[in-house]
């Protein structure tokens, strides 16, 4: 056992300053023993000659400068992993909380991971069918993508994330060839592929955490899920470790055990706030809105841990959820996230208030990887055209609607009226769908073509003429 130091001189928020230390290294894990015998984990934020600044991962409550012992463990924060980890539930700092035994580790992994060499990445281009039209057609999710949900307080992001986790699958070769779904789209794609869900909750309420747990139990997914739960009443700083634990497990499952892993991280806003708290305690020069200047880099070390690797079967698809304060997309958290992730699914309060589920707004939502996952051999030849046309037409329809509010509907010309009608139907028939409704991509595309009937043919500039000929029904 290494030396225990009793030389804590300062405690401020989640930070401890220990003097007289020797041989301490940056980022080293340490164990803090409080005078009453409780043990806490922490890591070294700054190592100087004879001094270390330690950040606790757990609450500092009860810590004293007198009597607190601190041991440096000569390793970084690690988690033990093995395939038995599936089906287990852990606290936000990686302790089992489901009453089960400790994991007997096959190996121990540093939770910070190492950056993937961009040269060894495989470009993600496999279409994932989520059964949700607005995602499948307009914001196509791709295996190995990081696609966050930008939500707001009170919007149904949890239900949406659960629905995606429940319904996501790939198309079979046969389906692609035929251009129609089999078994009503219910059956999973390739049978020989292994799937897993890794779920990390950061500062969410007990009920929200329960919701996911119940969902996974209900669908039988719990046996192939790993949950890390840091609820709102758990220590704030613990949240800094939670997503890293989850992603370390995900990397192990994906790149060493060939699983296709979906990682759900909720709620990234709470994570960033924990980071701000530590930064403020260190008295660092703040960037925008008090968040540390390195927020971008820090978030990138989380989000970039998604993708595919050449020669490896597995993949990590990341769906982080964040609630935008005041629904403001320019707030630093959604802003920096959007710069790192490969698009975003944006939920809209207006649509939600109209009773639309899922309230995914095409304007502001985007999947950057979709270009290579749409079209022949992936979905269907007309996919990208339908996508562009639907989005452009809906955007125009919404503009017309605003105009109609000012000028009155009667002042609109025929083309504008057509767009207005299109926008109405688009919301009711394309965006809106049931929480249990699992539409195949082909059904979703068919709805799109049906909506195009509202528009004059000359307005269909984004779809290829040959496709119009083939898919647009003749007007009666």
């Amino acid at each position, binding site marked *: 056992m290494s030396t225990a130091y009793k030389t804590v001189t300062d405690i401020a928020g989640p930070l401890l300053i220990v003097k007289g230390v020797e041989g*301490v290294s*940056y*980022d*080293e894990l340490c164990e803090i023993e409080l005078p009453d015998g409780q043990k806490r984990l922490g890591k070294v*934020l*700054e*190592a*100087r*000659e*004879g001094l270390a600044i330690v950040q606790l991962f757990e609450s500092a409550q009860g810590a004293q400068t007198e009597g607190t012992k601190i041991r440096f463990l000569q390793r970084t924060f690690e988690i033990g992993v093995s395939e038995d980890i599936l089906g287990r539930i852990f606290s936000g700092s990686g302790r089992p909380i489901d009453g089960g035994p400790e994991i007997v580790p096959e190996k121990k992994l540093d939770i*910070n991971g*190492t*950056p*993937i*060499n*961009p*040269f*060894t*990445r*495989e*470009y*993600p281009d496999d279409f994932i069918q989520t059964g949700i039209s607005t995602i499948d057609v307009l914001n196509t999710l791709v295996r*190995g993508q990081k696609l966050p949900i930008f939500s707001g307080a009170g919007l149904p992001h949890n239900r949406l994330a659960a629905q995606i986790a429940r319904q996501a699958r790939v198309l079979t070769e046969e389906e692609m060839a035929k251009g129609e779904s089999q078994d009503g789209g219910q059956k999973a794609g390739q049978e020989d592929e292994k799937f897993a869900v890794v779920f990390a909750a950061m500062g969410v309420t007990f009920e929200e955490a329960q919701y996911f747990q119940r969902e996974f139990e209900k669908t039988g997914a719990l046996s192939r899920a790993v949950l890390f739960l840091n609820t709102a009443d758990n220590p704030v700083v613990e949240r800094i470790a939670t997503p890293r634990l989850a992603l370390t497990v995900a990397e192990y499952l994906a790149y060493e055990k060939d699983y296709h892993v979906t990682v759900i991280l909720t709620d990234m806003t709470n994570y960033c706030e924990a980071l701000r708290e530590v930064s403020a305690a260190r008295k*660092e*020069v703040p960037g925008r809105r008090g968040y540390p*200047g390195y927020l*971008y*880099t820090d978030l*990138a*070390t989380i*989000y*970039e*841990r998604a*993708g595919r*690797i*050449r*020669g*490896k079967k597995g993949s990590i698809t990341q769906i982080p959820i964040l609630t935008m304060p005041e629904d403001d*997309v*320019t*707030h630093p958290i959604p*802003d920096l996230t*959007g*710069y*790192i992730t*490969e698009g975003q699914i944006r939920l809209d309060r207006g649509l939600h208030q109209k009773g639309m589920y899922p309230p995914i707004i095409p*304007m*502001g939502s985007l999947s*950057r990887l979709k270009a290579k996952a749409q079209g022949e051999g992936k979905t269907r030849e007309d996919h*990208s055209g339908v996508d562009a046309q639907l*989005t452009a037409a809906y*955007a*125009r329809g919404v503009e017309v609607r605003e*105009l109609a509010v*000012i*000028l009155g509907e009667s*002042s609109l*010309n025929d083309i504008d009226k057509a767009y207005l009608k299109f926008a109405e139907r688009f919301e009711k028939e394309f965006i809106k769908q049931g929480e249990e409704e699992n539409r195949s991509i082909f059904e979703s595309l068919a709805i799109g073509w049906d909506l195009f009937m509202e528009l004059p043919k*000359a307005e269909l500039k*984004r779809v290829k003429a040959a496709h119009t000929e083939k898919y647009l029904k003749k007007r009666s």
Partner: protein
Amino acid sequence: MSTQGTIIKVAGPLVVAKGMKNAKMYEVVRVSKENLIGEVIELHGDNASIQVYEETSGIGPGEPVTLTGETLSVELAPGLLTTFYDGIQRPLKLIEEEARSPFIPRGINVPALSRSTKWEFKATKKSGDAVQEGDVLGTVQETTLIEHRVMVPPHMDGTVKQIESGSFTIEQIVATIETADGVKEVAMLQKWPIRIPRPYARKRRPNEPLVTGMRILDTLFPIARGGAGAIPGPFGAGKTVTQQSLAKFCNAQVIVYIGCGERGNEMTDVLKEFPELQDPNTGEPLMKRTVLIANTSNMPVAAREASVYTGITIAEYYRDMGYDVALMADSTSRWAEAMREMSGRLEEMPGEEGYPAYLGSRTAGFYERAGAVECLGGEDRRGSLSVIGAVSPPGGDFSEPVTQNTLRVTKVFWALDAKLAYKRHYPSINWLQSYSLYVDNLADYYSKEIAEDFVANRTIASGLLQEESKLEEIVRLVGTDALSPREQLTLATAQMIREDFLFQNAFDRVDAYTSLRKQYRMIRAILTFMEAAQEIVEQEDFDFKKLQSLPAKEEIAGMSFWPEEGAEEKFDALEKEIRQQIAALKAGSSNVSVRQQEIAAAA
């Protein structure tokens, strides 16, 4: 002389060491037992602050720091092209081989350029020739596209003592030169410190366009070869797609593409696509003219700061050979943030929004390395380096310091607009906000090489777009009916310019690249339509719908998909059709009005 110090503090990428009296500013050091690469960025007496280019976890006080005596430099020799480097010029492929893992471990040491590959060196000078710095000693066919010119290193003049053609590795001596301070040996491999611009004879005024094939850029907001441009925009507006299109299609001979603090998958995309895509000018794979540098957002932040300098030094090297080089940096905001992070750790007094006070001067220093130049040497070579930097302003707010500092030194501003992207209008470059200060420089070229009235048409087109925005405000208040027929025609023409000319699909094979000549003809066709229609819209009870539903309008909508070959004839035919169809309308409508008069008279 002591070349070793001891670490006294580690905080993220910043390490402070004592016993560093002999360290120089910007000297490369090896940190700890792991031999991490670092660079001295501050000296305080005996102490040195070092930014470390690799992850520092597990490093602690007491460990050694070793001086290397060199400043951070890049290696320059044949073999740069087609290679994919990290921010400090380590080839990522070799890292993979060395690490035997898809991840990047620490302390890995791989050479930037192969020491064993032999290159066929053809001497172009002979012994006894007098040479000066920058003169070409010989050439190496580096790729099928680029002939590498081995130059006399800067600050060296004399007579060639000995030189021979043959097969050499980059470290072998290919020539010896008798100079005033003795005989100097020259190998193909040369080094240059990344923070110092490479010298040139003099700068020229850039007066040729860097043709990009993107219509909104080439026609409305052109950039010159040797110019500097900025693409700021919020996320999702298409910075990366624009940068990649530029890298694919612009008519520079050498491309340096820097992925600075961006997504790993984007670099993978480039890496996968470039070997497959053909250079539109030569038909060879694009990769053969490209150097890629990637420091993705999760790679160490200090190396991100260095990556833009690594890239621009390599770019300058090819410029010095007499090539037109284009450099894309995506994104310079991440570079600025890396500076901010280091500055914060150094506890410097922050300037605006926490950025260091020297943000402006560093930004200017970087963009000023662009330019059209006369190269060193007595051979009258000309090269150019165009720099295009993406900027990622937080919240899409252009008033933030990085955007503002960039705009002060770049002459082209391509403002990306999220609203356009929402409407799937690509490239989502806002035509009202963007500008190019090279328009006048390039006017001569356009009227000589493309068409006499190119510039005039351009002015009309951009005028129409300006007018459209004014008219749209009126429409928003009082509706379309309030507009005069002439104004309605303006709206219709502007709409054609937007939808049929500016809108461009980067993923369509034909549409992605349009030659200058075709761009000219497209604009001319649209303007022909407007001119022809002007005569008839003023007629009484003219039905605007008829004009809108002319078959020629559909033809115009399809122009962008016409292949370059044979386009000229198609445009001739189209212009004729436009005139005929509108003339027919004129005849038709006057017939109707004559008939109406008859009916009225009869009644």
